[in-house]
């Protein structure tokens, strides 16, 4: 661990990182636009310049060099002494800020970036309060560069982060800088719009309001949003994200830095795949079918309803005739509580891991990586927690069935009762399951959308989307990652954890931590969570 | 044929006249009988008090407006004189809310209790002395303008008016609301405390006049002059305690709006709330009537000897009018005080009663007893009264502490240890 001296203070830092990164990690704030830890370093914005001590070529004594060095391009070295608190550095910062703001329109009130804009932050912290620019400002056009992205060219600060992202991470290289000097602009090539599966990230890394998300455009001001640390449920990669919500509605998802899993990125499929949370077709009433009639009991009656019904089945057909189909969309805590509870009533109940939807193949980025390790993966397995369910089933032991075996046994009328959990945003019930359902006497369906399973079910338990729940998912690499609820459940629904906890017979109120502690006694693996390190302000 | 008809007609007219005469006689007999007269008078007083209370509320609103440079209610009728009717209608038509978790029986009972208690006190007030109807013989017993002439009139008033605290406490308790309950507790403590000096004042008056009958007290004053001359401080203290008993400013801690929302009647609405108000104003009228009887010469007017001695119905009416006018003046005084003096703090209230009023009035009772025993002139008590007041003032100055419990500054408190 090298030690460097910044403004007279010694800080310890990781090896082989730029000074800028070291200062940011130590809690300092150095203005920068072009530097992004996930991209190559171009040192083009000149905002992070610093003074450095170097040997005077004549006297060989260590002295502050007359010129400034970009701190993003200078790697740390043990004993290196730099300073940011000098007039020279500060002058550079103010002057750079003035240049950045020369042609920047003052339309913060209608700019979606306002509130999380680096230009605003740095202007407040390092800039001047007035502009000396008296000429009319350059006005560049608003450009529609892709299906999900808009480009407001006049807000651009030419940091080239988006260009580098498309080249280095997405590997598609649609964006480029055209023209030079004050006429330089970001643009796409004629006839080649920005259409890669990671294009949402260029909006995230744009430090100003130049690249904006069409989906979120003009919807909300960012300071109204409340962020919850979550994990994307779109595929088994387990990208950590924040769910940004206001007044019970999810407005957008943003990636959360998580080294080794998704780094700084997330795919568009996950980013824009939350719309089903607010789908009006969602199940929102606890329903019990009595013959042809539907009954809507109160949630507090649920434990009694399911216990009595399962017990009567166990009495009639034996404990082995009960099966629980755990969905890979469930959180580990929920799956564990459900399985444990059913095992209490029917100790020989079979645990089944539900079908995991597979779409295409795993996709690695950058495209055409020439054998280099992938920087980002989109998984073909479109469910967040298959590994977790498998861990729970293995951890609990006892009779287990694969999904195909379950279908076969149901077809042979060996299953009298099944608690089937869905939760997939897409249609997931195959023909074989539809056929098998006819042979199961008692189906308890827990799902978010009406399906063939809920049609055949005696008890329909409306489930919540992942944005309304909390718990943990185990991603494809076996990393156990916790996630929090971003919003309250939609009207009529309850958090799956809450009612399963009541059914399970837990004391007090449900919290994922409490259940996880119980699980860890059975399965020590759940005592170790993968939580990404906290990210300093203005870190990327 | 026509003659028969006319004759029948005459006969009919004659019998109608006879029937009328019979009816008149019956009415006269009823009015000449003290029992029935008292019942009639009771009804008249009841109705009169209700009207008076309604207009007392209007008067209060007017006076409060005038003292604050406003006009007060002036939209319903000329100068707002029909406002009480509008208010009454409003109270009747409003939704009567009974909150969910109240003690329902007590909640409904409390306002009626306080209302009835406030009204029964009027029974022993001598409104206008005694008189004889024109048609009565000279030897007949004169009629007494009083619903009930009982030997323990004054005790009756004291007993009944102290019952009114039950209404307040029950209302506060039944409301199941902490503010109501606070109000009720305060009211209870306050009323109990102020009954002590009130009783002392009354005792002095009873010793002086030698009777518990209010009408005899008035008669005594007819012979000796108004009792307030002999006991000015007792009269003042009685007035103060009457304010406290009626929960009027500056003693309205039971319903102090700034602290307790509405005190014991926070949860009440519509007719039940109206009953609380009626009771408060009725109480004011009773206590004024009592004070007037005891200290301010009842229906007497100094210099108008004929008023007391003339036994005609007309003179009785004038006496009632004089009495009513005195009550009106007292009510005005009550209201004026409400808009003049700010509310006491609770400790000040208690201090005033137990450390100020009780010792003073005890001295007065002792002095009055001594005067009676030694056979000194009644004017001695006047001197004692003035002496007590000045001594109280001297003590408060010399003791460095005002009777009302003014807080010392920190430095002085430290210096005094």
């Amino acid at each position, binding site marked *: 661990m090298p030690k460097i001296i910044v403004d007279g203070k010694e800080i310890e830092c990781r090896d082989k990182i730029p000074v800028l990164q070291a200062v940011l990690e130590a809690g300092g704030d150095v203005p920068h636009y072009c530097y992004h830890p996930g991209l190559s370093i171009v040192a083009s914005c000149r905002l992070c310049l610093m003074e450095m001590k170097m040997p005077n070529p004549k006297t060989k004594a260590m002295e502050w060099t007359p010129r400034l060095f970009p701190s993003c391009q200078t790697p740390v070295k043990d004993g290196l002494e730099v300073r940011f608190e000098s007039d020279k550095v500060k002058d550079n910062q103010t002057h750079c800020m003035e240049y950045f703001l020369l042609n920047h329109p003052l*339309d913060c009130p*209608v700019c979606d970036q306002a509130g999380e804009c680096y230009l605003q932050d740095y202007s407040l912290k390092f800039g001047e309060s007035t502009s000396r620019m008296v000429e009319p400002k350059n006005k560049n056009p608003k450009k529609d560069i892709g299906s999900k992205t808009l480009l407001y060219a006049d807000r651009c600060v030419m940091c080239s982060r988006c260009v580098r992202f498309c080249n280095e991470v997405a590997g598609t290289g649609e964006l480029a800088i055209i023209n030079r000097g004050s006429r330089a602009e970001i643009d796409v090539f004629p006839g080649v719009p920005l259409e890669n599966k990671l294009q949402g990230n260029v909006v995230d890394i744009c430090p100003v309001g130049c690249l904006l998300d069409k989906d979120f455009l003009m919807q909300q*001001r960012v300071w109204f949003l409340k962020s919850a640390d979550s994990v994307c449920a779109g595929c088994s990669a387990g990208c950590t994200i924040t769910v940004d919500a206001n007044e019970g509605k999810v407005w957008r998802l943003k990636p959360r830095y998580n080294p080794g899993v998704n780094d700084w990125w997330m795919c568009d499929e996950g980013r824009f795949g939350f719309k089903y949370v607010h789908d009006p077709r969602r199940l929102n009433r606890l329903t019990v079918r009595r013959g042809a009639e539907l009954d809507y009991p109160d949630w507090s009656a649920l434990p009694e309803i399911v216990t009595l019904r399962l017990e009567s089945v166990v009495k009639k057909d034996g404990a082995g005739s009960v099966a629980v189909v755990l969905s890979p969309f469930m959180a580990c805590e929920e799956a564990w509580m459900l399985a444990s509870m059913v095992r209490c009533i029917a100790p020989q109940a079979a645990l089944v891991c539900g079908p995991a939807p597979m779409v295409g193949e795993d996709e690695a980025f950058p495209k055409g990586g020439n054998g280099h390790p992938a920087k980002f993966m989109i998984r073909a397995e479109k469910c967040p927690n298959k590994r977790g369910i498998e861990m729970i089933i293995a951890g609990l032991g006892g009779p287990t069935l694969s999904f195909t075996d379950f279908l076969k046994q149901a077809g042979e009328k060996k299953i009298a009762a099944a608690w089937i959990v869905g939760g997939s945003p897409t249609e997931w019930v195959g023909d074989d399951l539809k056929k098998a359902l006819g042979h199961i006497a008692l189906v308890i369906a827990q799902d978010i959308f009406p399906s063939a399973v809920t049609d055949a079910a005696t008890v329909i338990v409306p489930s919540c989307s992942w944005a309304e729940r909390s718990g943990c998912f185990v991603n494809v690499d076996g990393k156990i990652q916790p996630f929090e609820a971003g919003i309250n459940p939609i009207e009529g629904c309850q958090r799956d954890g809450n009612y399963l906890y009541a059914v399970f017979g837990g004391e007090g109120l449900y919290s994922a931590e409490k259940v996880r502690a119980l699980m860890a006694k059975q399965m020590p693996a759940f005592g170790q969570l993968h939580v990404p390190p906290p990210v300093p302000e203005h870190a990327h | 044929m026509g003659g028969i008809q006319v004759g029948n007609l005459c006969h009919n007219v004659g019998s109608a006249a006879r029937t009328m005469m019979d009816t008149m006689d019956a009415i006269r007999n009823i009015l000449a009988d003290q029992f029935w007269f008292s019942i009639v008078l009771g009804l008249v007083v009841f109705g009169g008090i209700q009207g008076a209370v309604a207009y007392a509320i209007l008067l209060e609103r007017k006076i409060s407006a005038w003292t604050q440079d*406003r006009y007060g209610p002036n939209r319903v009728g000329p100068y707002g004189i029909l406002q009480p009717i509008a208010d009454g209608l409003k109270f009747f038509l409003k939704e009567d809310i009974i909150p969910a978790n109240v003690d329902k029986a007590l909640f409904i009972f409390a306002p009626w209790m306080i209302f009835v208690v406030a009204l029964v006190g009027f029974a022993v007030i001598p409104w206008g002395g005694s008189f004889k109807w024109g048609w009565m013989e000279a030897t007949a017993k004169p009629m007494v303008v009083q619903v009930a002439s009982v030997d323990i009139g004054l005790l009756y008033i004291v007993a009944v008016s102290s019952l009114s605290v039950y209404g307040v406490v029950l209302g506060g308790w039944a409301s199941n609301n902490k503010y109501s309950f606070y109000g009720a507790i305060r009211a209870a403590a306050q009323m109990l405390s102020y009954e002590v000096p009130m009783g002392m004042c009354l005792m002095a008056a009873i010793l002086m006049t030698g009777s518990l009958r209010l009408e005899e007290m008035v008669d005594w004053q007819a012979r000796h002059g108004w009792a307030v001359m002999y006991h000015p401080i007792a009269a003042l203290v009685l007035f103060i305690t009457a304010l406290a008993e009626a929960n009027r400013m500056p003693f309205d801690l039971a319903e102090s709006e700034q602290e307790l929302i509405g005190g014991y009647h926070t949860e009440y609405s519509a007719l039940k709330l109206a009953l609380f108000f009626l009771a408060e104003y009725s109480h004011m009228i009773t206590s004024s009537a009592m004070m007037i009887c005891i200290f301010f010469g009842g229906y007497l007017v100094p210099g108008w000897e004929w008023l007391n001695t003339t036994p005609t119905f007309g003179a009785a009416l004038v006496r009632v009018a004089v009495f009513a006018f005195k009550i009106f003046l007292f009510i005005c005084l009550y209201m004026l005080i409400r808009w003049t003096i700010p509310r006491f703090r609770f400790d000040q209230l208690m201090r005033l009663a137990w450390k100020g009023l009780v010792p003073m009035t005890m001295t007065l009772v002792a002095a009055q007893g001594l005067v009676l025993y030694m056979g000194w002139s009644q004017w001695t008590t006047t001197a004692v009264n003035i002496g007590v007041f000045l001594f109280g003032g001297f003590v408060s100055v010399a003791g460095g502490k*005002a009777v009302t419990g003014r807080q010392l500054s920190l430095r002085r408190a430290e210096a005094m240890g």
Partner: protein
Amino acid sequence: MTAKPDWKQTDIIHVDQPELSMTERMYLPQIFGGMKTTLRHMFKKKLRDETVVQYPEQKRQLRKEIYRGVHRLNRDDQGRVACVACFMCETACPAHCIHIEGAESPWPDREKYPIKFDIDELRCIYCGMCEEACPVDAIELTPEYHLVGGSREEMIFDKEKLLNIFDRTKDEKPRKNPNITGY
């Protein structure tokens, strides 16, 4: 850990309550003094004739430029809503009574405009922060204060209603900065 106080003992100024005089201590004379004041006001008809405004018949003289009554949404010189849906008023509003939904504007010279602009006039505390916050002077408080409605829903003023208030009051109180057109 005890933080060192940043004040000295000598900084404390003891303020004594003024000593009571003899008459004040005896209480009664002061009460008569107070009643004199009360009575004086009671019998001075002139005072109330001067101060009271008999509301529905008479009306107060308002300073129209500063009075904070019901809101209006200003129109620009082309009759379009001047609001740019920047949500600044919604952000500044301490009563949370403003609800805006923004959208891309149909006009070439403007970026954003409100497709919905609701003010809950019952929730509003008429503090005028929205007017302060507005960067284009689109929302203003008018001198209209006689605000009545039959239901709560009726008192949630939408964009049309607020624009109508502008049409109604623009002669009485012209727009402060008619030159600001938006972004």
